[in-house]
């Protein structure tokens, strides 16, 4: 397999960044990792995952959709869409890589979301295999192999080399654009690392998590469960879980009057908020229990019902680490499993 010494990562990044923007996970001052644009000196983070997921490259937290200018009785509609420039997101983990498939089902099915599609067409996702999964990881429950991530091209490391492999045509193009830096090498060491990672995956505390109790046909059984009251009891109704989640895709569209024009923008929304899907008559979900249930039912029942049984979670574990009250999808799944 093609490989490059890890010491030469900077050369590789420089080469990629020659022609397009490159984003890599990098450490912030506070010790957590976030995707940042690469420039000379920026180092790849060793952290397992970033606080926010990579969905933001295709579905940013806020984006302008269209502008309006009003003069008298005329409204001028200004289409502000522009063709996105090519970019590469490097170091995406297997869980996040799978999340793009889930987002695609929402945004690329008819009617196609042109804003999302535009970015998808110009972004190359280069994934990075995991070697140190954490106790909060449960991607294997969704059939994800973190040692062989999806994405346009996948990278692997054995601690001294970075190996690369294309997964599709765009990946091929990417690999061939940087292949001059790579050399063909033996993968014996890598295979050892992969075998060891797989061993760890087997003994992680959440490795036995089962998704069997969930799916599109479980609506009636799960919706009325008495467990929801207890599970949602201490939910404070913030949007942390939804905003760090790689698969949450709800958004709100609002108009902002700048004083000289109207800017229509969209921003991430959270089903945990009191004004989510608020209509003329108010919010259809009046209590936190209903809002809480909505989020998990969406991931575990509604989404699979509409998408051939695919669950709307990838097991990245972000909600497990970030929820202010430590309530999360794993606890919900374990509680509902028994129903």
């Amino acid at each position, binding site marked *: 397999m093609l490989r490059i010494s890890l010491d030469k990562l900077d050369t590789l990044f420089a080469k990629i960044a020659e022609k397009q923007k490159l984003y890599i996970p990098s450490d912030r001052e506070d010790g957590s990792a976030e995707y940042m644009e690469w420039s000379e000196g920026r180092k790849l983070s060793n952290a397992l995952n970033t606080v926010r997921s990579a969905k933001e490259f295709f579905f940013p937290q806020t984006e302008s959709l269209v502008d309006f200018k009003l003069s008298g009785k005329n409204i001028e509609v200004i289409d502000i869409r522009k063709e996105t420039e090519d970019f590469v997101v490097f170091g995406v983990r297997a869980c996040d890589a799978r999340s793009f498939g889930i987002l695609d089902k929402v945004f690329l099915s008819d009617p196609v979301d042109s804003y999302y599609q535009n970015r998808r067409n110009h972004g190359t996702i280069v994934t990075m295999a995991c070697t140190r999964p954490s106790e909060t990881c449960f991607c294997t429950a969704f059939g994800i192999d973190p040692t062989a991530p999806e994405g346009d091209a996948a990278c692997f490391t054995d601690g001294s080399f970075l190996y690369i492999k294309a997964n599709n045509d765009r990946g091929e193009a990417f690999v061939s654009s940087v292949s001059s830096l790579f050399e063909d090498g033996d993968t014996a060491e890598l295979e050892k690392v992969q075998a060891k990672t797989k061993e760890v995956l087997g003994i992680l505390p959440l490795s036995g998590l089962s998704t069997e109790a969930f799916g599109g046909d479980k609506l009636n059984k799960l919706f009325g469960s008495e467990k929801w009251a207890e599970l949602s009891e201490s939910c404070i109704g913030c949007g942390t879980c939804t905003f760090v989640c790689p698969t949450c895709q709800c958004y709100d569209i609002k108009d*902002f009057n*700048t*004083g*000289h024009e109207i*800017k229509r923008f969209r921003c991430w929304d959270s089903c945990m908020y009191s004004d989510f899907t608020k209509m003329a008559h108010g919010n259809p979900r009046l209590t936190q229990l209903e809002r809480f249930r909505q989020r998990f039912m969406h991931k575990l029942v509604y989404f699979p019902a509409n998408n051939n049984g695919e669950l709307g979670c990838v097991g990245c574990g972000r909600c497990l680490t970030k929820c202010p009250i430590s309530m999360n999808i794993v606890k919900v799944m374990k509680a509902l499993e028994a129903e």
Partner: protein
Amino acid sequence: MQVNEKKEFEPVIVAFCCNWCSYAGADLSGTNRLNYPTNVKIIRVPCSCRVNPMFILRAFQRGADGVIICGCHPGDCHYTSGNYFARRRMTLLFSMLDFIGIERDRTRVEWVSAAEGAKFAATMNEFTEAVKKLGPNRRLEDLRCRKQS
């Protein structure tokens, strides 16, 4: 922000004036034919205490380069104590804006009575000059609201 022909920076100043003293003071400065800059946009409020911190931030968002709150002198409030509460509130708010790095000369509180037309004009002249020196408000503006020149 407005740019005149000489391309000299002309700040937008928002002045919140209490109905009973400072607004009357502004009126008096007008009837006395005293000049104060056209940069100043007065917003009349029932009492200086009516000024919600959000009004001030909103003014900056919408393009103000400086915000001044004018009310009755301490002890003279039409509602007895409104300006005392306003004083504490504004002190803390300005201190916080200073703390997050907003230029401290963009905000001011001044007590102007109904008889002090001259003080009103002088204060506005002085404040406008001070803000002009600072240049346009960049740290607390909303980029979306900036007018394309």
